[in-house]
């Protein structure tokens, strides 16, 4: 393996030669002859965490399901690639919700994969911190809701009242959100006063302290919308789990994909990879009778649920069946942030602890959403020690906020033949990221060995997402997401753009849709049986 001094230029090329990547549907398929029409109860489109969850919930309740995936393997952004045995995670790095009886744990229990998902908590001293480079201030957040609250009060004793107001509000909002309790889901838009005010407005109301506001809004990086656009209620629903039970997962997203795949097979879900819907056919009275796939296969189905990006859903639906108002709504969604990601090992050191650092240049975190800003963008880096083929490696994953605009000028270039200017861009960002991390952690100086790097264009190629953004669409106050029934009566939308971004939010949307499709009574009985 190349040492830390390996020329960066070789490492920033976009054709990451991974051990397990197959470009998928771009390959022509041989078996494209038209087959006789298959009939199933449900088609689930997209095999990310939301699609896998939904397919399994339906199958466990006796319905037949075909799960369609455009790529060659299932998993969507949960996929973990390996290069030289070193893992790199595409979309899943850590999550909240691992506290006892937390929402995520309960969802995993219902899916019967809770035993296979092993959280690695950031629970050693100083293992979860926020660092402001501008003034060298570091804030460490302990694990647990009240522990976080107390730590922040200690950092900002003069703003004790503001901190308490914030933590009281976050908890109250989550306690009052029906959909955060699996026994109590509702498809109707959640509504509390904080669904109509932004994070920025809420924080401005309670304090003038900009550093405190930055500390309380930094987890916005986990939903990818600026504080002046995100609703405070949405922020609360994402952050509650992060304060309570933030953790990495042993084997990363692979653990989810592997265990869900085994369950999907056990319950007879038919997984079709390299497939996508080419057209909706036999439409009668606003119901789609059958779907023609790119492979030439036709499937007739009662219901089709899309868990993919709304822009991709819109492209798939028959345009002449849609009202302009609907298209305008969907076209009005903006992409969330993406991440420029760096995969590395930390060599010549003893085992490093699991740690998570949010590194912010200034306390103006919303500045990261301004493509013209000259400030370095916030980044998060996660370290951990992984046993790879009997050898321990210190693995470092860094993800720095990226915007569509960063790489827009090269978006029409193809993987493998991107221009030199793009390679320069990646090289610059990699060098700057390493410098920032070495500054904040001098012990890593000269020991960071880059394995690969990925821009939003890389993610666009590898994950088949329209912009390569991390969280689907940007979440905004007074925005109506695409969720539930669509204008064609047997077509539905779920996924991380539907309810809340992130793993838990994406899974939640699938539970809500499943309840609607299975029926309330059967669903309640099922949840009761699974959770006791």
């Amino acid at each position, binding site marked *: 393996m190349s040492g830390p001094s390996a020329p960066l230029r070789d490492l920033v090329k976009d054709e990451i030669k991974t051990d397990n990547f197959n470009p998928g549907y771009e390959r022509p398929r041989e078996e494209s002859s038209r087959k006789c029409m298959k009939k199933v109860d449900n088609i689930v489109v997209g095999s990310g965490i939301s699609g896998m969850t939904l397919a399994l919930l339906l199958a466990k309740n006796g319905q037949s399901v075909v799960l369609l995936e455009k790529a060659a393997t299932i998993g969507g952004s949960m996929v973990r690639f390996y290069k030289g045995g070193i893992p790199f995670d595409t979309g899943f790095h850590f999550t909240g919700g691992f506290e006892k009886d937390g929402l995520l744990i309960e969802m995993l229990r219902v899916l019967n994969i809770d035993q296979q998902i092993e959280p690695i908590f950031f629970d050693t001293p100083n293992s979860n911190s926020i660092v402001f480079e501008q003034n060298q201030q570091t804030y460490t957040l302990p694990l647990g809701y009240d522990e976080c609250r107390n730590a922040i009060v200690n950092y900002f004793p003069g703003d004790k009242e503001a901190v308490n107001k914030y933590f009281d509000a976050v908890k109250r909002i989550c306690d009052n959100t029906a959909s955060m309790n699996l026994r109590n889901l509702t498809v109707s*838009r959640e*509504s509390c006063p904080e669904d*109509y005010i*932004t994070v920025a407005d809420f924080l401005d109301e309670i304090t003038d302290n900009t550093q405190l506001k930055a500390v309380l809004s930094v987890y916005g990086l986990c939903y990818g919308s600026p504080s002046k*656009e995100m609703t405070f209620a949405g922020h609360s629903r994402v952050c509650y789990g992060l304060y309570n039970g933030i953790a990495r997962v042993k084997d990363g997203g692979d653990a989810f994909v592997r265990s869900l795949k085994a369950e999907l097979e056990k319950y007879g879900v038919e997984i079709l990879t390299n497939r996508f819907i080419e057209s909706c056919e036999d439409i009668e009275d606003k119901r789609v009778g059958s779907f023609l796939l790119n492979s030439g296969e036709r499937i007739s189905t009662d219901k089709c649920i899309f868990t993919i990006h709304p822009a991709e859903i819109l492209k798939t639906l028959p345009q002449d069946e849609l*009202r*302009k*108002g*609907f298209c*305008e*709504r969907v076209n*009005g969604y903006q992409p969330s942030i993406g991440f420029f990601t760096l995969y590395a090992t930390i060599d010549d050191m003893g085992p490093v602890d699991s740690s998570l650092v949010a590194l912010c240049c200034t306390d103006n975190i919303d500045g990261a959403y301004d493509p013209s800003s000259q400030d370095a963008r916030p980044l998060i880096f996660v370290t951990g020690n992984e046993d790879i083929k009997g050898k321990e490696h210190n693995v470092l994953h860094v993800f720095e906020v990226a915007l569509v605009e960063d790489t827009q000028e090269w978006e029409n270039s193809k993987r493998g033949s991107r221009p030199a200017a793009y390679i320069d861009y990646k090289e610059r960002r990699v060098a700057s990221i390493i410098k920032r991390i070495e500054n904040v952690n001098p012990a890593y100086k000269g020991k960071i060995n880059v394995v690969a790097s990925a821009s939003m264009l890389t993610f666009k190629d590898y994950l088949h997402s329209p912009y390569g953004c991390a969280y689907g669409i940007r979440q*905004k*106050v*007074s925005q*109506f997401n695409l969720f539930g*029934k*669509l*204008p064609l009566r047997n077509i539905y939308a779920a996924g991380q753009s539907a309810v809340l971004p992130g793993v838990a939010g994406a899974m939640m949307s699938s539970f809500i849709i499943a309840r609607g499709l299975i029926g309330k009574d059967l669903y309640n009985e099922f949840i009761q049986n699974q959770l006791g």
Partner: protein
Amino acid sequence: MDEIIKMTNEVFVDSFEMEEEQLTEDATIFDDLGLDSLDMVDMVVALQKKFNVKIRDDERVRNIRTLGDVYRYIELLRDEGVTSDTSA
């Protein structure tokens, strides 16, 4: 009010392919104009954009039955000064 009527009708013509002559004050949204509960979301989004207002998904929206109800609802929002910074 005339301006509200004119702008609301533009939304129905532009985003929902309605004919101008269908758009009378007592036309019911569901029966006469043929929208359904799912179209209502798109209607709300289009109205938010047109009038630069924030519309809550609340009782008042759910009670809208006729085009005249829409006019009066928008007028009410205007009077309350509920404007939005986020929609352009």
